[in-house]
Every structure is written in C-alpha cells, then in structure tokens.
C-alpha cells in the first residue's frame, strides 16, 4: 500500500484541541511542542497496535479485539487508561445497539407501510401478493444480521 507519509499524522486541529483541553487555561503551546506531541501520538498508535497484536497472537486469534487494546495499556504502563477505556467501550456498545435498534425499527416501519400500500393497491389478487411481501420481509432481516457479524 503506497500511502503518503502525512497519512500517518493525526489531524492537527483535533490534536491541538485535545492538548488545550488538558492543560490549564492561559498556557500556550509552542508549534514545536505541538508537532512533537502529534508525532508521539502516532508512535503511540503504532506501539499500542503492536502490543495488542502480540496479545491477540498469544491468544491464537487473528483479530485484535478491544480487550487486547485495553490489556496492552497495562503492558505499556498506562494503567490509568484502563478504566476510562472500559467506560468508553461500554458507551460505544450502547450507542451501536441503539443505532441498530433504530435502524431495524425504521426498516420494519417501511416494510409495513409498503405492505399495507401493496395490500390496498392489489386487493383483488390477495394471496400471491402477501406471500411475496413475506419473502421480501425476510431478506432485509437476514442482511442486518450479516452486517452486525462484520462489525464484531
């Protein structure tokens, strides 16, 4: 993969905002220091990836899991990150779940509306149409499941 070297940097504006949130008000940061912290963060990502990957390999798994990442923080002597990370992960899972629920809810609604519309349109040819609608309903539900598998 031929990526440009700047792709390995994190966006400057975001990094600056995170730094500003961390340091007391009224303290400025020099450009040099900012770039150094940004670079350090990129190195941190690489180092943590390597540590987490080692944990995954040790567990004979090919995919790095969130637990691997969190456990790698202890190896890197950033134990203080473990608790906040667990919390964030919990929140993230909740968020994903509510998103998924909302999406499936919406799909159901659309399907029902389509079904009632189809029913009212084609009142005469009842049974065959209803079977069709039933078949349509099954496929999107299956596709939702496969998408969630990919996510996990």
């Amino acid at each position: 993969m031929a990526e440009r070297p700047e792709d390995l940097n994190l966006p400057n504006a975001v990094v600056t905002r995170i730094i500003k949130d961390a340091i007391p008000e009224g303290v400025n940061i020099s450009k040099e220091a900012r770039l150094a912290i940004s670079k350090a963060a990129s190195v941190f990502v690489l180092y943590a990836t390597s540590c987490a990957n080692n944990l995954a390999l040790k567990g004979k798994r090919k995919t790095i899991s969130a637990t691997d990442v969190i456990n790698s923080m202890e190896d890197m002597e950033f134990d203080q990150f473990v608790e906040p990370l667990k919390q964030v992960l919990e929140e993230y899972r909740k968020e994903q779940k509510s998103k998924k629920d909302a999406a499936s809810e919406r799909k159901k609604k659309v399907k029902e509306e389509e079904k009632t519309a189809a029913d009212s349109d084609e009142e005469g040819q009842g049974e065959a149409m209803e079977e069709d609608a039933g078949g349509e309903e099954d496929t999107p539900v299956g596709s939702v499941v496969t998408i969630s598998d990919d996510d996990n």
Partner: protein
Amino acid sequence: MAGGETVEIITETISQKDETDMSHLKNSDENKTTNLENKSISEKEESDTIPAIENGTHEETETHEDQEETLEQSSSTQDQTEPSGTSESKSPNSNERLMRLPLSRIKVIMKTDPDVTLASQEAVVALCKATELFIGAISKDAVVTTLNSKRKTLQRKDLDVVLDSRDGYAFLEGTLD
C-alpha cells in the same frame, strides 16, 4: 391560540439575538414584521417536509423548531462571547461525541504494522480513545515542567523532561527528533 405562544417564543429568539444584532429590537412593529417573515419561511419549510399536518399541530411543531433554534443561537453566542466558560460547554460536547480523532486515520496507522492481520471495529475505537488519553496525559505531564519554570508556553524541552521522567514514555525515545 397557539399563535400567541409562537410570537412570544420568536420574540425571545430575537432578544437572544440582540447581543449580536441590535437592529431587530428597534420597535415592536418591526418585531412583528420579522415574526411574520420568520413564520412564513418556516411554514414553507414545513410544508415541504410534512405536508399532511393539520393547522393546530402545525403551529405546535413550529414552536418546537423555534425553541431549538433559540437553543442553538444561545449556545453559539455563548461560544462567541464567553471563551472563559469553554470548560463547562466542552464536557457535554465530549459526552456527545465519544471520539474526536478520526477512526479512519487510526486504522491507516494500524495497518502499516505488517504483523497485523485484522482488527475489530471496537479495537479501533478503543485505540482511538487511548490515543486521546495519551495526548492528554503527556500534555498534562509536560505542562508541570512549564509551570515549574514559570513559563506560560509549553515548549519542546518540557516534553524531553517528561520522556526521561516516566518509564511509560520510554518507547518514544529517538522517535521525536
């Protein structure tokens, strides 16, 4: 009628505006005309999106929209006028958005490791947040040195002190030059 409420709320909206734009508050007649303009505009917007709603509920939803606008405006004026209150307005912000760094970029960096075969989305999220925590931690550690030497600007040399002081930062040695 609900119309009275609408007018009141819109007047509030405008009085929120008055910090930035005084011309709206010159007299009440002008207020009314702007109200009417606002109303017709938002009615047009609504009729585009929700054509089936009856008049009574229509006005109710309109007031809700106006309230939302009011909130947005007040928050934006707060940002402009009170930079000192940013620490308060930031905490709910960070709750809304779990991650501020782009996940895609984190993924790209992870993929440069030739040993990595796959990483779950959750792992990327965790690493993204960890990186944010890391940036915060290293900044907080470095600023101690800055303040100790009675400076007001965090400089590169403050970082060097931090890198030597903690084992956790040992992995950075030689990478920042």
